[in-house]
């Protein structure tokens, strides 16, 4: 009887470990935030509470390890696996997908900061080369455009929000992004 119990106990623990590994596999492959429903489907569980618990255990494990990777829980209980930003500059050039260079990233930051913002204002602030940046950002689904008469209004997309783990609520998202940008600007100032 005792032996059986021990055996059963072990198998529960292993089952849990297995499910945590599956969540890790899912996050690794997806490269984007996944919600509890999707993760639950992968581990064959309908209980959101259970899935959440396991995902959080994986997140804690990553924290303990001191890995260069991190798992984040976004505000709507979605999880994402990504490289810690401290490491980005050192390994960026190894990434295969053509990444955005500084110019388009600045234009993106400007749009995120001022959104909703007219394309005209973006060009005025960033110069005519920003036309190309805007096109590129739209192609990458980071920015979307809305036509209002003869004006083009630009804002960031939900995909963009996911990328940064931000809220889908535009007002909240804008506050979050302004906070991030201010932090980055300060880090830059104090860093030099």
């Amino acid at each position, binding site marked *: 009887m005792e032996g059986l119990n021990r055996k059963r106990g072990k198998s529960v623990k292993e089952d849990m470990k297995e499910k945590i590994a599956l969540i890790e596999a899912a996050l690794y492959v997806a*490269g984007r935030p996944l919600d509890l429903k999707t993760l639950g489907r992968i581990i064959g569980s309908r209980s959101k509470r259970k899935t959440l618990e396991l995902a959080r255990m994986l997140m804690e494990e990553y924290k303990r390890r001191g890995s260069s990777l991190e798992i984040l829980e976004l505000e709507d209980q979605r999880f994402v696996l990504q490289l810690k930003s401290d490491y980005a500059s050192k390994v*960026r050039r190894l990434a295969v997908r053509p990444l955005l260079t500084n110019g388009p*990233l600045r234009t*993106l*930051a400007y749009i995120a900061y001022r959104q909703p913002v007219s394309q005209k204002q973006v060009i005025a602030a960033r110069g005519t080369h920003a036309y190309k940046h805007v096109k590129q950002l739209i192609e990458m689904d980071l920015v979307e455009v809305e036509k209002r008469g003869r004006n083009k209004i630009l804002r960031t997309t939900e995909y963009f929000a996911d*990328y*940064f783990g931000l809220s889908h609520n535009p007002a909240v998202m804008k506050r979050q992004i302004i906070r991030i940008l201010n932090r*980055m600007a300060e880090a830059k100032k104090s860093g030099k």
Partner: protein
Amino acid sequence: MRREESEKPFYLHPPWNILFDPRMLERINPWKINIAFILLSFLEEMERRAIVDFRASGIALDSSATVYLLKSKLLLKLEEPPSPPPREPKPDYIPPPLILPLRYELTTTTIQNLLQALEDALKTENLLKVKVKPQNDILLTPQEVVPQVSIYMIEMEELMKNLLRRIQALVERGEIITFSKLTRGLKRLERIRDFIVLLFLAHRKKISLWQREGSDEIYITLGEDALNGGFE
């Protein structure tokens, strides 16, 4: 020159000259002119030199009044409600570049997708038949471009035979044979090849080539050899 300058009345020199040059007066910000100092020193200088010039004093007075007038106009302007601060010149804040987090992402493209794409690419290239013998089309090395001489001649014999047959067929229909007619519908490279073959045929006296003056057209007639029994 120096003498001339020294002969100029003292008040035409700085700092007093400003009172005697209306254009200069227009250009200078009235707040920068210390009239009390200028007038006082002007009078002192006149006293010192013991020359009293009423005409100059009148002008100085007039100019000083103008400066006062300008100053009061500016003061009056300030009494009006202050205009809003200029909006434009303040440069727009440009935040630092937004660095995207790095995430690996498994992509969906498989070797099967790649090969399906290859089939499509070859179809559009219209070279699907090459599929069986791809090595023919691999980057041409010099050896492949110019086959060894013997192979080259065997090929040439074959080409000559074929072309001569085409020419004979046209002759039998009683047509005048021209190079453009012979090569109608052919690609540029094929036409060049046919032209080289024609030269070989002419060299062997299978055909004759001639041109009319002032025309680019090449006329082809069968040579005696060809008429008497073809190529063999």
